């Protein structure tokens, strides 16, 4: 395929896309010349039709859930129902200014939006068994940071001297990074043979200076830690807090309430379990729920409901960690999640996790004879294999690229870090048996090919718009912006 031009390379002097009204209503320019930029920014000069064709063609270079099976482990790439898009694009929801409810009597201007936020917050609290949620965090990692900030506020308030947070080595990198940004040292605990946090090493690390533990459940191996209660009790015994990383919530939705298990805080990735679109890498959103004793520390503002059913914004919480986002969260994403939950309903919660787990186990058992499964028994929402059983000289990366040639997005690879040559497959509930059968057949074909014709895999992918890209050169050359002119 021929190289796609950049939008800047399509630019031609004097062209324009959108006509701007020409009327002037004031007599003169108000900005003194010394405050003006010396020349106009070199933005593209292209017609609307060129813009539409360019970005339509760019879109077609992507693999997406709409076009391809996308079993990217730990990312829950489920179908995004279009009804949620329709709900989020209602003009009365899109066109309201976030400061209106902060004007005097302004709450009535955005009553619908506030009521929606309140209802969603209550639903998430019920689903997780926690006392209250903040919908403000703008992504999963932002939710983690918000939670760590609440931990710090709690311990400060109690006069606790806490220095570190305990995190298993199988956790997403955002866990330790968020803990550090929240002011804590990180104590990393290795995994045991079954992929769970090593309980003896954990107990040895736990002490009075432990602020809390961040746990992903089921773990990134897709396995439920059977000793979770023991961990929770031990942490509470030193007045530490248990954090539930909701990255894998799709596995247990409608079956387990983290709050009832004893978790004190929890974030949910609405772009995973609650089906809001991944957007090519955001915007996500990561609401955080807390147990009763942590409510005073929630960020402001908080949405409250008065006796007559009117919703208002409350700011008067002296122990709050303060603002963590400019407003009330990624509102239009929250609308999508709310719409999704309304349609899912009580039965759909468990209906979802049941089928996500069935699909993952189905793939695991079909592939087990051909790859080394990490789990000897059942998995939950995702299954993890090691690519070490591939033919000599063939790596997980080669398998991933070969899958692209066969019309699938690749699984997550080389994560979790504690599995050599990891292949992490999360089919989600929104795939047919036929798709899973075809995917497994192709996986098996590649495994066989790795032994009979490894060279064929080293050249993959050959059907994509570009072949394997030189990432070393990219980091060395640092070509991060186009510096050329128009064509």
């Amino acid at each position, binding site marked *: 395929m021929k190289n796609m031009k*950049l939008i800047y390379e399509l630019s031609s002097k004097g062209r324009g896309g959108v006509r*701007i009204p020409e009327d002037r209503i004031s007599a*003169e*320019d108000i900005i003194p010349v010394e405050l003006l*930029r*010396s020349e106009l*920014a070199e*933005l593209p000069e292209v017609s609307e039709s060129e813009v539409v064709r360019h970005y339509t063609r*760019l*879109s077609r*270079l*992507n693999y997406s859930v*709409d*076009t391809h099976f996308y079993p*990217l482990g730990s*990312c829950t790439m489920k179908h*995004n129902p279009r009804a949620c898009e329709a709900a989020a694009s*209602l003009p009365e929801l*899109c066109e*309201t*200014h976030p400061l209106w409810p902060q004007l005097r009597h302004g709450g009535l201007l955005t*009553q619908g939006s506030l*009521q929606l936020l309140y209802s969603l917050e209550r639903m998430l609290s*019920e689903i997780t068994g926690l006392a209250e949620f903040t919908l403000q965090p*703008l*992504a*999963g990692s932002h939710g983690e*940071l918000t939670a760590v900030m609440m931990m710090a506020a709690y311990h400060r308030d109690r006069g606790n001297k806490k220095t570190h947070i305990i995190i298993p080595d199988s956790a997403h*990198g*955002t866990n330790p*990074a968020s803990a*550090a940004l929240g002011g804590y040292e990180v104590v990393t605990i290795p995994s045991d043979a079954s992929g769970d946090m090593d309980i003896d090493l954990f107990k040895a690390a736990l002490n009075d200076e432990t602020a809390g533990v961040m746990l992903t459940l089921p773990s990134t191996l897709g396995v*439920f830690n059977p000793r979770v209660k023991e961990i929770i009790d031990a942490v509470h015994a030193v007045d530490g807090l248990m954090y539930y990383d909701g990255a894998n919530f799709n596995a247990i939705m409608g079956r387990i309430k983290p709050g009832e298990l004893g978790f004190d805080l929890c974030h949910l990735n609405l772009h995973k379990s609650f089906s809001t679109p991944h957007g*090519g*890498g955001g*915007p996500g959103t990561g609401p955080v729920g807390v147990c009763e004793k942590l409510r005073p520390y929630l*960020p402001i503002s908080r949405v409250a409901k008065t006796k007559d059913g009117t919703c208002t914004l409350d700011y008067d919480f002296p122990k709050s960690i303060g603002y963590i986002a*400019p*407003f009330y969260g*990624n509102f239009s994403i929250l*609308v999508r999640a709310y719409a999704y939950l309304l*349609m*899912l*309903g*009580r*039965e*759909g919660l468990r209906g979802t996790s049941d089928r996500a*787990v*069935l699909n993952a*186990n*189905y793939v695991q058992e079909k592939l087990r004879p051909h790859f080394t499964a990490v789990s000897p028994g059942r998995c939950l929402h995702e299954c993890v294999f090691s690519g070490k059983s591939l033919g000599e000289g063939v790596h997980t990366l080669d398998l991933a690229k070969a899958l692209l040639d066969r019309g699938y997005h690749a699984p997550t690879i080389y994560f979790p870090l504690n599995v050599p040559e990891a292949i992490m497959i999360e089919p989600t509930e*929104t795939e047919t048996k036929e798709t899973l059968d075809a995917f497994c057949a192709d996986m098996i074909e590649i495994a066989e090919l790795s032994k009979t014709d490894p060279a064929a895999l080293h050249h993959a*992918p050959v059907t994509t718009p*570009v*072949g394997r*890209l030189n990432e070393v050169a*990219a980091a060395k*050359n640092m*070509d991060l*912006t186009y510096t050329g002119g128009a064509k």
Partner: protein
Amino acid sequence: MSHTSFACTSSFDEEAMLQAVGAESFDDLFSQIPADFQTDSFDVASGLSEMEMMQHIRKLARKNSSDLTNFCGAGFYDHFIPAAVNSLTSRGEFFTAYTPYQPEAAQGTLQAAYEYQTAIARLTGMEVSNASLYDGGTALFEGLMMALRITKRNRVLVDTGVSPIYRTMLRSYTRNLKIEYVEVPLSDGAADRAAFAEQLNDQVGAVLLQNPNFFGCLDDLTDLIEQVHAVKAVAVLSTYPIALGLVKTPGEMGADIVTGEGQSLGLPLSFGGPYLGFMATRKKLVRNMPGRIVGATQDDQGRRGFVLTLQAREQHIRREKAASNICTNTQLCALRSIIYLSLLGKQGFADVSRQCMDRAGYAWTRLNAIDGVEPLFDRPFFNEFAIKLPKDAGDVVSDLIEEGIAAGFPAGRYYEGMENVLLCAFTEKRTKMEIDILAAKLEAVL
């Protein structure tokens, strides 16, 4: 169908699949989880059909008033969005894809991000940009942290012309870190040169400024940034991208790190999000920059392609030592903005900027001619300015809402002693007639 889970398997499929995995039932699949951990008690209503759900949400939406004539800005503006922005970004190939971990299967996302980075660098007059952050406030905090990493110092000076919404966020974020956070009050609507001179020394790592500032005032910060550089501190400048169609760029003023809210570049106000944090810097500082960065490279046949690059800065590799905890960007919002900027183009973007300035210039004359109204600061401005009223601005706004007008934002909400100050913003969408009505209604309630 007994449930609405959007699953795709029939009960026949499920029976066969359960058998294939050796499970008797769905419950059996979860046997690794102790039974007493599990619950079936969820106080959630039964699922709605799509039609019922839409009826429910429409009913809620109708409780909002979206037809006010809006002069409320304060950092978040009601600009026109060409139809092609929505049409292109709602292509499923863009919005149902994820992080470009497999670059060969994500060239659309990656190239668009590279084009976006180029546009942000050109708008701000800087050399490089990242692929976007969450919003303008978190971007400013990331800029602060980046400056402290570069200087290995821990004191931050913040001009109070920086959005008070962002400053409350900065205070929350810095509280648990070993950071000395110092605010420097404005002097007559501008950053106070003398006060900064007094505070600047070799302990200061970062100086946070905003142009145009919260009150809409424009300033040439070149001299202040020189002062910052004289003590080897890093200047972080938050800006409003529509203004950059016309006004002197942060790059021209010598800023080291530029951040801002990109909502005005083709994103609806959407009651607060999702928005678009942007960040640009100089090439020599790029290894300290947080967030995803896209770079151009070549494939095995010498064809141009794009990849995520400089990933050694990021959390999935560095974990607790990473430049930031940020995992994702706000790719779909960045896509909206590059499409918006491409549609407007070089001249069109400057024209939008000029239209905003034009409306604000007219309104300045009209509003300040009202008896009892006077400018808060007599300084150059772009599309927003503050006026002093003879009575409480909150009451005035409340009165004008009755007339279908959101007259502005009362500054007293964030600034002590400014109870009578109203901040009014003007975009290309506001007409002469709307401004005349604002002036007349304002005059009537004073």
